[in-house]
């Protein structure tokens, strides 16, 4: 059932008028603090609102991430957007609909059951009443608390939700428009900022006259503390200036990461805060065969195809910033604090950027533009990052080491299970741990010292511990989390946080146990799964791929399986991958089955699952941020390859229809299972398992040669 308990967004923004207004005849303004980051959220939220209000989707004007009028909903992350943001909009619209219907019924002295709504017009027994939302809006105040108790529609009656509605933002995008990068105002001031190459670095020397020469036309240089910016009316001039400055700047001091940073050995050497969580049968561990394996993942970057961009204007003491931030309301708060402005004087307007797959540099760019705008009141300042700075200074998704061990009973099933994780936090977004986490702010003189770092709390899905607890029926389970808070980099959230590495480890280990048991990996999984939804997803993926009918594959080819329920509470996804291995992995075909409960936008859901599959494959096959001389060594896409057209096979997806279950977040669900399935397929093809990511050609060659 779709429950009526208040979602978090509605608790935080309890007044109906914070969400909805009937200002223009025929149009409904619906506010959302959740923002479009390429996942199609605006379209899905529009569907929900139109459905509950009985208006056409085109009548909804969804205003998202505009801090003066949209509800404040934290970050658009963790696959919460539809589950929480969408649920709030559903309740608000249902309540507004009933308030209006009650009023119409009273005026017409008829029971509500005689009334219906068509495109926002109220009908009585199918006939026009001459009333609609807009003509009645003056009579009903929406400045009241949402009760969350109005009846919502039954999924079986849906006409818009769960049906295909083309993405609202795509028409502009196929014409090359619609991005924050494309906003052009008269008299723009372009700016670029020189980035510190590591935390706390001090600028020892910068040959400013060489920088000015490189710019070609006159530029202005702002220097405050370690914050250095170049401004000009010409974008080309500041691009050239910052490129030259990056090469010329000499830095000293600060915390330079060592070359082996992120390796399992480095991780295990760091100071840690430890937490052990035991569940299941108490008492002594059972006796039996012990199996143990260690896995690791490296540092990764989010790598959007577009670099971050922001605009800002400071006029009459008020700051406006345009940003593709994932959390406009949070950004507003922390911009205000970092710039010493009252937050009422700051407004953030969300505009679309390139895809965000986690904490990126959008907020940093917004700070850059805002800070510079305050030095140039009245001008609109535009900042766009370089690709090199994106690699060098973006928040980084942290390396992790994961050790699994199990004691097997006489049927080779785990009687005891232990997972031990070493990881820096996955959480340094603006405001986390009370830090602004804005790069530019940290470069200013008198920047406040960093508060000690924590990870995303387990109640909110955890960071390193996300999906650490295997979903299988395990009689005894121990989780040991070594949080490494003294990491010298801004480690933060990338799609799935710790989840996909944990799923890679767990699903690899399950395959290792199945091998010991001499059982088929899918059957072995099923023997440890009682949850019917989980079983159905595993069985569906097996059927879709013809897992049990597999003929003998040619030499060098193999299939692997991976399964997880994201965060153990969101969507279920099982993935089968067929690979061919000859020095490198080539993906031949991928199948995926998923259960996301009630699906609002079916095509959008498939698009997200497929995107997650491709990104998950890219993470485990190619990606690694490396450090040299204390700084990020990857400077271009050549040094940080991601999967490309020629690497990507056909993908078949089956979305299990489950409309009576609540909507589950699915943006991150397929990432972990895909990586795990690739690891398992590779192990089968090679006859040897590689447990350290990425599964590159060099590693495969080394494994083959070490035989």
């Amino acid at each position: 059932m779709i429950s009526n308990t208040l979602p978090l967004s509605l608790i935080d923004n309890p007044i109906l008028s914070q969400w909805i207004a009937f200002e223009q005849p025929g149009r409904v303004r619906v506010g959302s603090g959740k923002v479009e980051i390429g996942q199609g959220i605006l379209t899905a939220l529009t569907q929900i609102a139109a459905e509950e209000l009985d208006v056409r989707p085109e009548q909804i004007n969804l205003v998202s991430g505009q801090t003066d009028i949209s509800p404040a909903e934290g970050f658009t992350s963790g696959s919460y957007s539809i589950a929480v943001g969408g649920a709030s909009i559903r309740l608000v619209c249902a309540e507004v609909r009933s308030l209006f219907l009650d009023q119409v019924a009273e005026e017409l002295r008829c029971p509500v059951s005689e009334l219906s709504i068509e495109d926002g017009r109220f009908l009585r027994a199918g006939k026009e009443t001459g009333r609609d939302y807009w003509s009645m809006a003056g009579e009903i105040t929406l400045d009241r608390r949402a009760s969350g108790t109005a009846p919502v529609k039954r999924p079986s009656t849906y006409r818009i939700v769960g049906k295909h509605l083309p993405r609202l933002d795509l028409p502009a995008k196929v014409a090359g428009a619609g991005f924050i990068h494309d906003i052009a105002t008269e008299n723009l001031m372009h700016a670029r900022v020189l980035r510190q190459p590591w935390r706390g670095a001090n600028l020892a020397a910068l040959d400013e006259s060489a920088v000015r020469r490189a710019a070609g036309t006159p530029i202005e240089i702002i220097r405050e503390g370690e914050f250095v910016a170049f401004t000009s009316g010409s974008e080309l001039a500041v691009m050239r200036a910052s490129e030259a400055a990056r090469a010329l700047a000499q830095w000293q001091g600060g915390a330079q990461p060592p070359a082996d940073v992120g390796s399992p050995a480095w991780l295990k050497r760091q100071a840690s805060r430890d937490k052990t969580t035991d569940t299941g049968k108490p008492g002594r561990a059972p006796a039996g065969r012990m199996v143990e394996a260690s896995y690791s993942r490296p540092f990764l970057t989010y790598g959007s195809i577009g670099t971050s961009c922001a605009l800002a204007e400071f006029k009459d003491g008020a700051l406006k910033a345009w940003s593709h931030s994932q959390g406009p309301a949070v950004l507003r708060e922390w911009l205000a604090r970092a710039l010493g402005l009252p937050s009422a004087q700051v407004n953030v307007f969300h505009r679309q950027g390139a895809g965000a797959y986690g904490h990126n540099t959008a907020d940093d760019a917004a700070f850059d533009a805002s800070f510079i705008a305050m030095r140039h009141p009245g001008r609109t300042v535009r900042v766009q990052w370089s690709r090199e700075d994106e690699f060098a200074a973006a928040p980084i998704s942290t390396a992790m080491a994961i050790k699994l061990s199990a004691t097997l009973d006489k049927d080779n099933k785990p009687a005891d299970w232990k997972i031990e994780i070493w990881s820096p936090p996955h959480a340094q977004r603006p405001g986390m741990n009370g830090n602004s986490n804005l790069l530019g702010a940290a470069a200013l003189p008198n920047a406040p010292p960093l508060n000690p770092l924590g990870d995303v709390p387990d109640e909110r899905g955890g960071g390193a511990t996300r999906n650490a607890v295997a979903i299988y029926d395990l009689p005894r389970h121990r989780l040991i989390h070594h949080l490494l808070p003294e990491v010298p980099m801004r480690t933060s959230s990338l799609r799935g946080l710790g989840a996909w590495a944990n799923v890679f480890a767990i699903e690899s280990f399950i395959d290792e146990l199945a091998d010991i048991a001499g059982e088929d990996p899918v059957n072995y999984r099923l023997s440890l799964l009682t949850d019917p939804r989980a079983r159905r997803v595993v069985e569906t993926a097996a059927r879709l791929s013809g897992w049990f009918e597999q003929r003998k594959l040619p030499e060098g080819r193999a299939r692997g399986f991976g399964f997880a329920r994201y965060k153990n509470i969101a969507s279920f996804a099982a993935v089968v991958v067929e690979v061919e291995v000859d020095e490198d992995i080539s993906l031949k075909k991928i199948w995926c089955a998923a259960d996301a409960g009630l699906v609002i936008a079916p095509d959008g859901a498939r698009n997200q699952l497929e995107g997650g599959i491709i990104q998950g494959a890219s993470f485990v096959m190619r990606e690694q941020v490396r450090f040299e001389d204390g700084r990020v060594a990857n400077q271009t896409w050549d040094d940080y390859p991601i999967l490309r057209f020629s690497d990507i096979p056909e993908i078949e997806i089956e979305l299990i229809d489950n409309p009576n279950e609540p909507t589950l977040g699915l943006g991150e669900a397929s990432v972990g299972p895909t990586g795990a399935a690739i690891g398992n397929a590779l192990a089968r093809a090679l006859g040897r398992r590689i447990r350290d990511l990425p599964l590159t050609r060099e590693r495969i060659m080394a494994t083959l040669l070490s035989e």
Partner: protein
Amino acid sequence: MTEKYGFAVNGRPVSVECDGTAPLLSVLREYLGLRGSKFGCGTEQCGACMVLIDGKPEYSCSREVSTVAGRDVTTVEGLAKDGGLHPLQQALLDEQAGQCGYCLSGILVSAAALLEKNPKPSRAEIIAALDPHLCRCGIHNRVIRAVQKAGAALAETAR
């Protein structure tokens, strides 16, 4: 050194006065207000900036404007003819081939050049033509289907 450079963009003659070493992408976006082509890397590695020069896909992020003097440049804005969508744009919408969409401008022009030569490309031929383009969101398969569909639509209208 600023100088005057004349060339055609989307069939219209233009003339800009600028430094001849300025990248074509900067000239398109800053001087000509054509912001469809995108900046992604500046180093010919992602394809976001792809344009056609005399009908051939070329990176505009590193291409010096002086080298296109007298030539024909086509950007994503030039694909749609007579106010309608180019069949490729329509096919991308039909296939919902987009997540963030940042990669699409470049992909569109490369695909248009491919279909110009080969209206019935195989999956492998499409992949070869689009391999210079990176997409981080993972819409590759949808794009491939859209290119095939658009090819079929073009062949239909040509008959």
